[in-house]
């Protein structure tokens, strides 16, 4: 088993954090894994992405060029990465910010208006967690307890109050 996931969006949308929660959840289950951020000046204000690889064997390259799963949170990321999604792959799209068609009929595309939904449900800023929730339900590798301990590892102790809010947003995304 190997899952190559790419999270992409604007800096500030929490794409690196979403990847971190996925990585920490996989860590708890004993998988081999890697997490690699884009880094450099473009991470501030510009586009930002991170690659997470989960596998049951040693991971070669942590760079994901053809993601099995793309989580796209803005239009530039969608444009840049949609064609790289592997055949029969999955794209989870924040449709409140991305109104775009693609000619990929060989992949599964799931549109969730995550940013709008987050605002409606008093979860503003947690679109990333809603999309991650959907990813968790699609890959079906982890149960609620795994995700909860992955979340605890990902949030620094000074921001512990955010744990439950994040988990609520993940549960919301999973249920869609």
């Amino acid at each position, binding site marked *: 088993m190997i899952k190559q996931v790419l999270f992409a969006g604007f800096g500030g949308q929490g794409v690196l954090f979403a990847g*971190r929660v996925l*990585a*920490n959840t996989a*860590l708890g289950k*004993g998988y*081999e*894994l*890697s*997490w*690699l*951020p884009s*880094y*450099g000046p473009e991470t501030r204000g510009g586009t930002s992405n991170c690659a997470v690889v989960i596998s049951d*064997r*040693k*991971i*070669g*390259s*942590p*760079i994901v*060029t053809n993601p099995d799963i793309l989580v796209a949170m803005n239009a530039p990321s969608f444009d840049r990465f949609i064609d790289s999604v592997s055949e029969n792959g999955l794209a989870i799209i924040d449709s409140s910010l991305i109104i775009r068609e693609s000619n990929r009929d060989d992949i599964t595309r799931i549109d969730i208006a995550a940013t709008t939904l987050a605002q409606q449900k008093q979860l503003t800023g947690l679109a990333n967690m809603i999309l991650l929730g959907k990813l968790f339900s699609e890959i079906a590798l982890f149960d609620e307890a795994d995700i909860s301990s992955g979340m605890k*590892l990902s949030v620094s102790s000074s921001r512990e109050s955010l744990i439950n809010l994040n988990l609520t947003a993940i549960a919301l995304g999973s249920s869609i």
Partner: protein
Amino acid sequence: MAERLLMKGNEAVAEAAILAGCIHFFGYPITPQTEVAAYMSKRLPKIEGGVYLQAESEIAAANMVLGASAAGVRAMTSSSSPGISLKTECISYMAGSDIPCLIVNVQRAGPGLGGIQPSQADYWQATRGLGHGGAHALVFAPSSIQEMVDMVFDGFELAEQYRIPAIILSDGLLGQMMEPVIFPERKPKYIDKPWALTGHGFKREHNIVNSLYLEASELEEKNNEREQRYNEIRRLHAVADSYLMEDASVAVVAYGAAARVSGAAIDVLREQGVKAGLIRPVTLWPFPTAAIESAAEQLEQILVVEMSHGQMVEDVRLAVNGKIPVHFYGRNGGILPTQQEIINQLLELTGGVK
């Protein structure tokens, strides 16, 4: 069992240094290394006697390490390629003064300011070009964060044993990525440093840390003595890891991040019946010449894979000494060769399944 943690390479190498007894760190920001310094700036002020200092330049940071190490403590600095170039003046002085230390180079692409993406284009610098005068440092090439952590202990201990600087040649990929790591329950080993500038307290002759010998015969004697240490290191501490080499007819020779991808490519080829293996230099200086020399007896050909235009390939060719063809594949500018690219290269060389 110790806890399995998820950490960035840059943070793990810093934590490992603290566990290995290094609480004197002198740094300077540069991407993609800065997290090493940032981590130390958080941790060291909380440790009794811990010193974190941000120097005014990489040049100064290296010289602060020279001072601290000369005073007998375990000292460390880290930087990324352009910053290492600035440190090389001092590395030459440390080598000439027989001062141990640990330096981490989180390589980025060059030359000049280059880019900030990962690279292995500092191989020549690390193994050949550490300032003037023909000096060496121990050069370790981790290919995982776990290995990088373990090398920090070895780095300090061998550096002190042989009184020579040690370098961990990381890169932007290993520095920036996170993967699971287990910190070893290993107690650091310390040895006496009778040469250290501790203040003689009227109990011994005064110590001098120096690299200047105006009398040619004196300098030659000094350099010969050091060369003997270098030769012992070459004999005892050259390390290579081999993977699926028992029946291999073609081998990839790669280190660090390039070796990770090469290993994964070999796994795929093995499933297709191609008898490929991997020789991974773990130390770059001393270079594991013997391991490659003896592998060349069984192999038909070698492919060297690097994130550069080909630097280590020269050492591989010296080791093979013309016995079999040594091919090269590399990407540079900050690009890691992909698994598929390496597979294609090997298929082309072997003519498919053999």
